């Protein structure tokens, strides 16, 4: 049994789209493999200590809450970059995803600082992009898998040239509604607009993150995790994917 240490950033502020569902999925799926997930909330007054956590999680918040934490997180950027350089995995969803870039420019020119961990920046748009979304991802060469989620964001996220998106948009808007790509991936760091929450209906990504976290813990390669009976997850994925496809046909 391994204890996987998760640092959950600002759980009191960034939790708008049921982020605790993602944590619950990581926790159960670790437990079903005989591992334990130890989740520590990291708030405004807590330090990020490189090496102390195998996986970080940043959720989404309302604009106001996001603003309340943005400066604080930017002040910890150095430690977070060091943690990730040391092999910690990270999942950031929606507002958390925006915070990982270089920053967010609002409608009236106001700027919110970012961490600069992912090669991207976000500009406010005039219309929210809302709805079911379906992606095709290839995190390892030749292994193509889909992610089904729900997006609801006004920000248009632009990746730098050469940056690796999380996936190709099969249906929905994605990063900016025009590039055809969604999210961003850099090593063990994944940022995405997809909530719903993301992991219950996309258990392969939960397992991928757990494997990366275990690799950080052991200092070795990501292990093969024992497969689970994921019938319900597959059904939920199929329904959500169907919603996204139906929308793109409209």
């Amino acid at each position, binding site marked *: 049994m391994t204890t996987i240490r998760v640092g959950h950033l600002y759980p*009191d502020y960034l*939790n*708008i*789209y*049921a982020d*605790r*569902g993602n944590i*619950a*999925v990581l926790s*159960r799926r670790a437990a079903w493999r005989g591992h334990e997930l130890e989740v520590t909330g990291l708030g405004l007054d807590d330090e990020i200590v490189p090496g102390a956590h195998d996986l970080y999680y940043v959720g989404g918040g*309302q*604009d*106001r*809450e996001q603003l*309340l934490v943005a400066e604080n997180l930017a002040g910890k950027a150095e430690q977070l970059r060091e943690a990730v350089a040391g092999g910690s995995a990270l999942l950031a969803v929606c507002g958390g995803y925006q915070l990982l870039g270089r920053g967010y420019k609002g409608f009236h020119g106001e700027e919110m600082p970012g961490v600069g961990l992912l090669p991207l920046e976000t500009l406010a748009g005039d219309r*929210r992009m*809302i*709805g*079911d979304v379906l992606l095709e991802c290839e995190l390892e060469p030749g292994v193509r898998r889909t992610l089904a989620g*729900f997006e*609801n964001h006004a920000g248009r996220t632009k990746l730098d040239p050469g940056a690796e998106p999380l996936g190709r948009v099969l249906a929905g808007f994605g990063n900016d509604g025009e590039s055809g790509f969604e999210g961003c991936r850099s090593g063990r760091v994944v940022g995405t607009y997809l*909530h*719903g*929450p993301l992991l*219950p*209906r996309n258990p392969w990504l939960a397992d991928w993150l757990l494997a990366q976290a275990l690799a950080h813990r052991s200092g070795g390669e990501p292990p093969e995790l024992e497969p689970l*009976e994921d019938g*319900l*997850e597959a*059904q*939920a994925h*199929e*329904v*959500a994917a169907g*919603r996204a496809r139906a929308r793109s046909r409209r």
Partner: protein
Amino acid sequence: MRPAVPLALEIAAARAVASLSRLAGRGGGTTIPGKLLAALDPGAIDRLAARLPAGAATISATNGKTTTAAMAAEILRPRHRLAHNSAGANLVSGVASTLLAAGRAELGLLEVDEGALPEVLRRVRPRAVLLGNLFRDQLDRYGELELIAERWRAAVAELPDGTRLVVNGDDPLLASIAETRIGAVAFGLDDPRVARPSLQHAADSKYCVVCGAPYEYATAYVGHLGDYHCPNGHLARPPLEVAAREIELHGLERAAFDLVTPDGTRRIDLPLPGLYNVYNATGAAALARALGASLDEIAAGLGRFGAAFGRFERIAVGDKGLLLLLIKNPAGANEAVRTLVDGGAPRTVVIALNDEIADGRDVSWIWDVDFEPLLAGLDRLVATGGRAAELALRFRYGGMDESAIEVVPDVEQALDRGLELTPPGGELVVLPTYTAMLALQRVVAARGLARPYWERAA
């Protein structure tokens, strides 16, 4: 510009459409005439409202607006002939339909959708405005709740001086909207014995609107509603003019409390369960009082009250009972769960999750609901509706054994499966989202067990 068609003719045309729509069997026809009128001549709504001799009052909230409006109607009915949108048609078109059908009504009592409130206030110019609560709800449809609050704040600032504002003082966001308004009435709860030990997971509006510091709560009742203050002194719960004290919750049966007002105190025995209904009743009392009702009228009206359609409904099905409790967002569903557990947790439950526009396309909210208190007593979950599998996952990852979960997407089949699992003399608990509730009511009506809502509302 006013069209050449006189108002009377528009009314006649729109009413004819309503009758046709009902004859054609297309549901209640509750908003079709209003949609027609709103399209023909939006200004007609203003003129229809202006015809009401006793004026109008509006009721808005994320949760409980239909029930609160129905309670206020019960209190005010002996005093006035009402134009009341009791079937829950609460957009601008629904308000228009209600005013159209009002005939000789004296007082408009209008439940209004959160998003539609600014336009309705502008057109209807009510005498009194009740703001009940703001919780996170259907983020895909309404946007973030701060946005709604800002639109409400702007709309309240535009209200004429004579309009009475009645707000839930336990909601910090609403209290901040009412803070500078002269004559605003705050209502709320005042009984630490029924408080939650801590803020719930899905609590919203936790941070001071001025400085962003977390509010300190002396007591938290439902979601972020409670007795709060900013540690830096910016905002605190206002003094309550109308308050509920000495609250007793009797499981799924009823709730009782002392209604404390400047005119005196009355013991209210409410034939409805749950703390959220104590909020609804206290709000309805404060609104009715602002409209001139006496304490005797308020107590009598609340005592007579029966549940608003479908929000909480008991129906006999042969030798079994059916209990329907609407769930639509984390705060409301948490209260439904708490009320169920207080009444003795059910062993079988049917939960119906749809994702139509009226339910919210985004189903992520189910992960913010604290369903866990149900798990200890639960032998079987029948998950149904368009997103049944997602709901099943919520319970699987909440710790329920997968073998105890049945996924039956068809709502009628799920109802029958639930009834099959219910012993004779027992009661089946069904928690549906809005459109799933409508589907269940159609099934129940088709089997001759209850009348359709548009007949009951008439």
